[in-house]
């Protein structure tokens, strides 16, 4: 990658003591649809994030205009900003530990070679399935994304790492209408391989859900046992824990898990991992966004807080090894430690068994607003858009429009009654279905 080398070289020429270029080349298909395909986009982009240090002074500059002149200007601007930045007393050096873990399942060579028409055909077939399901159902919105990412990281320590990844994501919503009653059903899926994406199944499930919820109603406020579906609890897990287990939050005093290493923070049967090597995981890759190898890290083992997640900066500050969690959401964003694939270890109960052994309670199938939960206090809030009453071991009346609240840390400690065996992901967060002993519900 000539321009990356040029950027690093120029940064050093302008007076940087260290420099790192992160170049990302993206090819992305983006399809939007409703009851038919609305638009088809082909995006080809490239961008470079340049991180420079002038002794202990740091700066990041990025650009998507990769001409020689712009790269030179970018290097100059980065160094200029770094020179005026106050010293970071904790700065030691850029990552020097380059390498690759044996992570697998992050690149689909079939997707790269595939004709676009195959994607269009599969998608049209799924849309048709949704329409055929029931004449009260209409596909109202959906998105399908396929991307191929080439990432190169190169540093002034003479190290270089390259990786090629694929991501596929789809999201679709069905709406049902019957004599003025309206309802929706939404399904989503994020995978690394085209053959793991079952669009027709998603379409049918969304349609089925929309029809079932035509008669959904809120329920009275109260406290009830709940079963939370895997993808929903995965999302909650990510919203609450991604920050607090990040070493940066811990070091800055923002994390409620600060000073709790080795302490019991959850019930004995709870294991939570971060696994950058998870086969086919949404954020699986051989090295992180500063070139450090990825790994599997136990965050909570048998209820005890075992590790925080580190990039090299936070690791050097604590005098420990990086856990390979350096992450940039986009090439132009600052680096920070974040989970790769965050996972609540599955247990051995099936969701059906959970329901069967529940006399009274609710099953949560879909929520909105869970990201409004507060990771610092652990205050959990979500609005259930799709739930069911559980009566004598069976899902009965569909319910909607109620708010659940509770404290996530209390849930981990003593409200987690059962952990399911059906692991699924919501982006990089993985969880099985879980049953909680009790949760507060604000209803009508």
């Amino acid at each position: 990658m000539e321009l990356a080398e040029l950027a690093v070289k120029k940064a050093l020429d302008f007076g940087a003591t260290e420099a790192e270029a992160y170049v990302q080349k993206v090819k992305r298909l983006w399809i939007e649809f409703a009851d038919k395909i609305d638009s088809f986009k082909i995006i080809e982009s490239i961008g470079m994030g340049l991180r420079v240090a002038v002794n202990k002074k740091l700066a990041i500059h990025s650009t998507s205009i990769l001409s020689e002149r712009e790269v030179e200007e970018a290097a100059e601007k980065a160094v200029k900003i770094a020179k005026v930045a106050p010293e970071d007393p904790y700065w030691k050096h850029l990552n020097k530990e380059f390498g690759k873990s044996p992570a697998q399942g992050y690149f689909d060579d079939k997707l790269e070679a595939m004709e676009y028409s195959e994607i269009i055909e599969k998608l049209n077939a799924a849309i048709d399935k949704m329409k055929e399901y029931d004449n009260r159902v209409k596909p109202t919105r959906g998105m399908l994304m396929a991307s191929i990412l080439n990432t190169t990281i190169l540093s002034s320590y003479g190290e270089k790492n390259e990786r090629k990844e694929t991501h596929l994501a789809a999201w679709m919503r069905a709406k049902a209408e019957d004599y003025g009653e309206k309802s929706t059903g939404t399904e989503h899926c994020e995978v690394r391989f085209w053959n793991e994406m079952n669009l027709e199944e998603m379409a049918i499930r969304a349609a089925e859900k929309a029809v079932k919820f035509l008669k959904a109603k809120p329920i009275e406020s109260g406290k009830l046992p709940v079963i939370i579906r895997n993808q929903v609890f995965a999302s909650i897990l990510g919203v609450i824990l991604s920050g607090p287990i990040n070493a940066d939050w811990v070091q800055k005093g923002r994390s409620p898990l600060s000073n709790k290493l080795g302490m019991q923070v959850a019930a004995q049967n709870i294991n939570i991992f971060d696994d950058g090597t998870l086969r086919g995981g949404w954020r699986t890759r051989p090295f992180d966004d500063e070139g450090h190898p990825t790994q599997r890290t136990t965050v909570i083992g048998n209820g005890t807080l075992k590790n925080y997640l580190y990039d090299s900066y936070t690791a050097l500050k604590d005098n420990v090894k990086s856990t390979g969690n350096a992450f940039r959401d986009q090439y132009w964003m600052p680096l920070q430690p974040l989970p790769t694939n965050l996972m609540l270890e599955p247990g051995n109960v099936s969701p059906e068994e959970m329901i069967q052994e529940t006399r009274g309670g609710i099953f949560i199938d879909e929520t909105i607003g869970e990201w409004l939960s507060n990771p610092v206090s652990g205050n959990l809030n979500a609005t259930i858009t799709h739930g069911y009453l559980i009566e004598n071991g069976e899902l009965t009346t569909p319910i909607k429009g109620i708010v659940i609240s509770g404290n996530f840390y209390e849930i981990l400690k003593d409200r987690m009654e059962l952990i399911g065996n059906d692991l699924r992901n919501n982006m990089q967060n993985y969880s099985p279905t879980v049953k909680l002993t009790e949760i507060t519900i604000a209803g009508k």
Partner: protein
Amino acid sequence: MEIERETEKIVKKAADLGVSHVDICYQQYDYELITVENKALKSYSSRRLGGLGIKVALNDAVGYASTCDLNYASLEKTLENAIKAAKLIKKEEKRIVEAKVNRIEMKSPYKIDPLNMAPEEKVSAALDANKAAWIDKKIKSAITRLGISKDYRIFISSEGSRVVTETTMIGVAHESVAKSNGIMERVPYQESKCAGYEFIKSMDLNSFAADISALAVEAVESKTPPAGTYAVVVDPNVIGLLLHEAFGHASEGDLVSTRESVLYGKIGSQVASEHVTIIDEGIIEGGYFYPFDDEGVKKEKTVVVENGILRSYLHNKTSAYEFNVASTGNGRAQDFENLPIVRQTNYYMGPRDHKFEELIEDIDFGIYIRGKGATGGQVEVGMGTFTFGVGPSKIIKNGELAETVRGVVISGFILETLKTIDAVGKDLTVRTSVFGGCGKMGQTVRVGDGGPHVRIRKMTVGGR
């Protein structure tokens, strides 16, 4: 500009290839973000994004492709990609309305270009503000951010439009975390304006940060409200958030045409109480400067709701065609990599005639819901369900403000909620943000929202 000459060639080439309509969007976007955490500079990042997107209509099918590589060969390849995309979805028919051909340049005014300010001055402003936030031992963490953006766009169409817009924006954000008796509370807040560095100079950044800390300390020592349904008064931040998220999205023409919105088929009917008027407007004090949309259409003042009656949806050229109306100038794209979809600009409730004291005086027990410290919201437009985490608020007892409550979450069904509005204040505040925006279908755009203080008779409040 050289790029404009290349663009003209692409428009001609597209015509030669039988393309009936071409829109080209060139963009150069600059962004700077200074982050200070706990009295130290955490990062100074700056970003430049430049590129060009081509939208073609071929036998009524729309194809889109974009590139960052601006040499002519790459632009030609991008045109070919757009045509390829259009051919693949040729089955469908997607028509658009005609709109006036505009040839105009409009730039948001500023005195001092914030991108040209010395980096050290910007850093020290943020650093000083952060240091001023440590007002109490209970403050455990403080983050201050200074953000600057400049968005320059050229829109060119095969019909002859050439619309150049530039919006310069600056803002400061601060977040304090307070801890007491094992409870932690986070209060984030921000102020932004379409202006230059003079906006930062005119602000007292130190008291801005200190005030947020004071609120975090006050909140951490307060209780959460009992869950239930109450009469509430919401402040301009909250009514803005509520309207934008729970009503604004539902009024977006594309979501209406797919019948996804609760507002489908409701033009001319009562959707809110008679006190409610809702407007979407491209240029308004305090809001985001958006004179023309990304389809070259002027963003006029759109009255969405008038005295409780739904008058208009928001439209781009595509949704306008389906409703047989004119585009309202709401076709917006995040950047050159995205197709314009129907988006709000500055969405707000029109003021009426009540003083704040009059709004609370007949509430025996309720809550004054405040937006400062709000963490955001989410909505399901199909059913109109909303849920928002708002800031530390105040209990209203016997017509007067009483103690502060924290951890307040409001939720409800928007059409029911808006019908229980029985009084609207005479103040008006519209706000925007340089730190984020509104997300829809994977695209984020800058928006403004607001309104006056508003009394809502029935609101579900979840606490703990």
